[in-house]
């Protein structure tokens, strides 16, 4: 016996959000998919199948910038995550100093990205920049405009300066959420400072760190404005990352088809890496 009333009118309630998502995400994305399988030239369009995909995947320029991108994001994570945790651990827990630290830490996060690029562009200049001129003054031959190592160093330093605060703030909030009882129990159990960190703080920071790693991976993987303003991708192509390569392709050369195919590959890489990371972490947690 089926007493359930068949009424699917509730689906109409989903309609507004469906429209919203369609216009803000699905339709633009589908346009890109559409472009990626066609050759567009003035008003003529030719269907080319997977040709653009094969082309971009075999393009050595793109491969090189993909490798650079992974090295960059990896370095960013390796530096910013431990540094952020360290900063959070060293911050005062209450009082005026705590508020002051929070304000100072939040500052870099409030500066527009291209302004950050400009700040470092000037700060690092070998002739007049505070850091650049100082380094040269003490005998270090430093010039980010001509030396790829210096350029990498500056871009990384800039990103660390700009984004470590985010990790630190996330960790700080995570640390504040640990009940006092844990610290008291650890004191009673004669735990060393390292044991407190390893067995209490770090496990309790797990969730905020997952978010921190994901955010920092995605953001650094999509970085554009800061290195663009700072080095313009140079010297040579040494600091040209994926999004800059993409922009050159789409806007500079107007290769819409390959650029569309590449955008999708780019998007899938970000999605795949984030998904892999997230599932591995969640899986590890459930296994025990």
């Amino acid at each position, binding site marked *: 016996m089926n007493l359930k009333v068949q009424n699917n009118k509730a689906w109409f309630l989903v309609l507004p959000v469906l429209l919203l998502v369609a216009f803000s995400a699905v339709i633009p994305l589908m346009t890109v998919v559409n472009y990626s399988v066609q050759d567009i030239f003035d008003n003529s369009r030719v269907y080319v199948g997977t040709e653009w995909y094969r082309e971009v995947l075999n393009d050595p320029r793109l491969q090189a910038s993909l490798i650079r991108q992974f090295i960059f994001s990896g370095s960013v994570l390796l530096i910013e995550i431990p540094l952020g945790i360290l900063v959070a651990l060293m911050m005062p827990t209450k009082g005026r100093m705590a508020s002051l630290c929070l304000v100072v830490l939040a500052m870099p996060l409030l500066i527009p990205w291209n302004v950050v690029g400009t700040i470092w562009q000037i700060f690092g200049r070998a002739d007049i920049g505070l850091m650049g001129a100082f380094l040269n003054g003490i005998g270090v031959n430093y010039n980010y405009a001509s030396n790829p190592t210096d350029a990498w160093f500056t871009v990384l330093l800039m990103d660390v300066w700009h984004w470590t605060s985010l990790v630190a703030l996330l960790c700080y909030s995570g640390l504040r959420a640990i009940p006092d009882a844990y610290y008291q129990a650890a004191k009673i159990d004669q735990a060393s400072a390292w044991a407190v960190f390893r067995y209490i703080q770090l*496990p309790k920071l797990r969730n905020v760190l997952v978010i921190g790693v994901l955010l920092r991976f995605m953001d650094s993987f999509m970085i554009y404005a800061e290195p663009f303003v700072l080095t313009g991708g140079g010297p040579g192509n040494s600091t040209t990352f994926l999004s800059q390569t993409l922009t050159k392709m789409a806007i500079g050369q107007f290769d819409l088809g390959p650029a569309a195919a590449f955008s999708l590959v780019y998007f899938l890489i970000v999605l795949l890496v984030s998904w892999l990371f997230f599932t591995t972490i969640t899986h590890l947690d459930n296994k025990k």
Partner: protein
Amino acid sequence: MAEIHLESLAHSYLEQPTKPEDYAIREMNHVWEQGGAYALLGPSGCGKSTLLNIISGLLNPSEGTVKFDQKNVNGLQPNQRNIAQVFQFPVVYDSMSVFDNLAFPLRNLKYPKDRIEKKVQEIADVLELGDLLHRRANNLTADEKQKVSMGRGLVRDDVSAILFDEPLTVIDPHLKWKLRRKLKQIHEKFNITMVYVTHDQLEASTFADKIALMYEGQIVQFGTPQELFEEPEHTFVGYFIGSPGMNIIEVSIDDSHAVFDNIRIPLAQGLIGQLTKKLSVISSSNIKIGIRPEFVAVLDESADNSYECSVLDVENLGTYKILTLQLGEQKIKARIDEDQIAPTEKAFVLFPEQSLKLYLDDYLVREESI
């Protein structure tokens, strides 16, 4: 192993305490002897947990000293005092297994591996955690977690003392009794000083040899459960211990009688003498008499020195009955056996002299010892 002395100890959470009410712990002197099983009993907010945290070193007292075996330990951290404490709500290290949790304090103390294994196994057996040793601690139920929490306090056999801060709050009632028995067994086996904080008098009297009863930041009585029951040194002890608590009646004194509502109750000569002596030093009109419901004799007929009262209520609690009686303007409780027939309208009560207590400013007046 240590004897713990509290000397002129006081604590206030305020920076500049002025009134006595500003103190969470009012000035006290107290000794916890080595190897004793003690309960610290009192209502919520009386300062029990504060006192416990001061003993363990989580909190520094604002005044006075804590001594372990005559050594001043003020300012020493809990790890330097070598003390174990179990908290009201379970604290387990989520990322570790039950075994690692129990082994954690021992590993921090750099015990040899085989000794850790033996000790953990021993405690796991006592607490019946044997089957769970390799489970991860965050998947346990609340009472399993609390057992782990307790286990971490119990694995160390070299501690000065083990302090329990209402450890059985989150435990199921049927397990509570069992765990209390376990603690008692562990106490007997290892002869470690244990201080057990609770607000439950039954818990206190089943666990402890001696109970310290706290009220408004002070230990108002320290004695065996029987002493607390029979000789309450403070009206609060009378009220708090026993179910129902002591009948306490405000009285005035007239010619060696306690008088209230035109009822005159004769007092022992020794008591009167002592009271007069005390009143010559301090003047106070705060005089009370107290008698436990268990000691009030209820009769059907008038007898010598009996007082007539009307029966307001009879509660049958299975093995005994509680009568609520009106005597003058006062309501008093009396406890009678289940086989005694409860009077329905009128009853006569007797207050046996040796059970009738006299209080001046809420503190017991004892008979002069001759």
